[in-house]
């Protein structure tokens, strides 16, 4: 059974999630200059320019029901994904808490999604157990490509 690398990220409210090794591109050292987008949903109201691209800022914790306070440990991570196999790369950003951590994962760690909040079913494509806690694997194409 082979191991795969994944990035585990923290979210406000002590939530954890993971993305593939090549899906996390960059963690911004400083808060970017954000631009509001009119009539956008509360959890994703702003965009910023990054390397010539316009990236939405998605606050997963807020969407999961946590309060809007970002705290001092909030960072913006830049992620990439393909909307479908063979499609060009798309980019988006998530508000994360703390520094991402690289972990090794294999199939034996597959487990059910956290029971609460139920909305993980919308955000995640799979889940693995890490240290006795389920860690949802984010479906970035769904998160950035659809109105949740």
């Amino acid at each position, binding site marked *: 059974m082979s191991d795969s690398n994944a990035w585990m990220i923290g979210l406000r409210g002590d939530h954890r999630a993971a993305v593939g090794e090549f899906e996390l591109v960059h963690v911004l050292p400083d808060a970017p*200059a954000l*631009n*509001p*987008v*009119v*009539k*956008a*949903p*509360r959890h*994703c*109201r702003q*965009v*910023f*320019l990054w390397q010539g691209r*316009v*990236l*939405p800022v*998605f606050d997963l914790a807020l969407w999961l029901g946590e309060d809007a306070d970002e705290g001092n440990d909030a960072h913006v991570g830049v992620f990439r994904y393909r909307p479908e196999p063979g499609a060009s790369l798309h980019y*988006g950003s998530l508000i994360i808490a703390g520094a991402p951590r690289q972990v090794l994962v294999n199939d034996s760690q597959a487990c059910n999604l956290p029971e609460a909040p139920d909305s993980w079913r919308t955000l995640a494509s799979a889940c693995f157990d890490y240290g006795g806690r389920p860690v949802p694997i984010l479906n970035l194409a769904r*998160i*950035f*490509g*659809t*109105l*949740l």
Partner: protein
Amino acid sequence: MEFEALNEIREADLSARSAEIVVDGQSLLIGHIHIHSVEPILDVRMSSEHGRAIGTIELGEEQWPVFAIDGDLNILASVPATRRACVQLKSEHGGIALLCDEVRVINNETLTMVPVPGCMGGEDGLMDSLAVMNGKVTCVLSAERLSLMLRSQTTVDAAPAASHAAGER
């Protein structure tokens, strides 16, 4: 404010330009071809007879409803002190006017248009796209959809403040 300059752009140049409307610091772009004219706010006749419009502005024989909106396109019941100009928008749904703090002409060659990210909506069609302008990102509005949305708020039924014209999410 360049009212005269805004009102005197040649017909041939209209599609190559946008109007940048600034409301509460939020910059919004609308194709200049949809701008009928820009007038001082003093020309607005305040009235409560047109639903959630704050008044009307005269255009020949017609009275166009005038709206005060905030930076997120929510209709306001009163006029903030920073509003100085009245931008008249024409569309196939009829004319409307918006009060704004500033208005400028933008050459479209200075803009880079990008689609609205899927996670940010756009289902209501109010935004055509986003635009990168001078290192900032701004919203490009659909004049047709905006006019349709605002004109639906000019009936007496639309008057109660509890209704939300553009739909709170």
